[in-house]
């Protein structure tokens, strides 16, 4: 699976999110910056992304590391 494909799925599912996905076809790493994460726990943030990825996460994506930030958090770590 192409990392771009995962990136587009997340971008389509979360409007306004800044998404970057890298990977070797089996293991992927995604960095997602979205206002939608504001006020959500890590668990809720990851669940939101898993929901967007739906069956792809169950069937086609073997391993996906997630880093989730609000725009404010992202400003602070840049």
């Amino acid at each position, binding site marked *: 699976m192409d990392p771009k494909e995962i990136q587009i799925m997340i971008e389509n599912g979360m409007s306004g999110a800044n998404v970057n996905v890298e990977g070797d076809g089996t293991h992927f790493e995604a960095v997602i910056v979205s206002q939608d994460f504001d006020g959500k726990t*890590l*668990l809720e943030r*990851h*669940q939101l992304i*898993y929901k967007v*990825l739906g069956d792809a*996460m*169950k069937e086609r994506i073997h*391993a*996906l*590391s*997630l*880093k989730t930030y609000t725009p404010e958090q992202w400003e602070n770590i840049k």
Partner: protein
Amino acid sequence: MSEDIKNKIGSQIEQNNVVLYMKGTKDMPQCGFSARVVQILNSHGVDYEAVDVLEDPDIRQGIKEFSNWPTIPQLYVGGQFVGGCDICVEMEESGELGPILQEAAK
């Protein structure tokens, strides 16, 4: 998921303060993500129950539905789902994981 599996997972989580659903065993993790969480839990010196999902396909599938979470490993502390590897690592780095492990061990 069958009622049997649901009950089995429910009682594993209820009867153990800390439960890690993982691939492989504590001594021989079969996946880097599972190994990472084992390493973190070991570093805290807490007792925990490790369930090897590779030993039981029903649990492997069942735990994903039970937690509504698509990946393994999965950590439960004090009956609550904490998260997968990324969340454990982030909570470890931020210092949040230690206190909840200590609290559950009481």
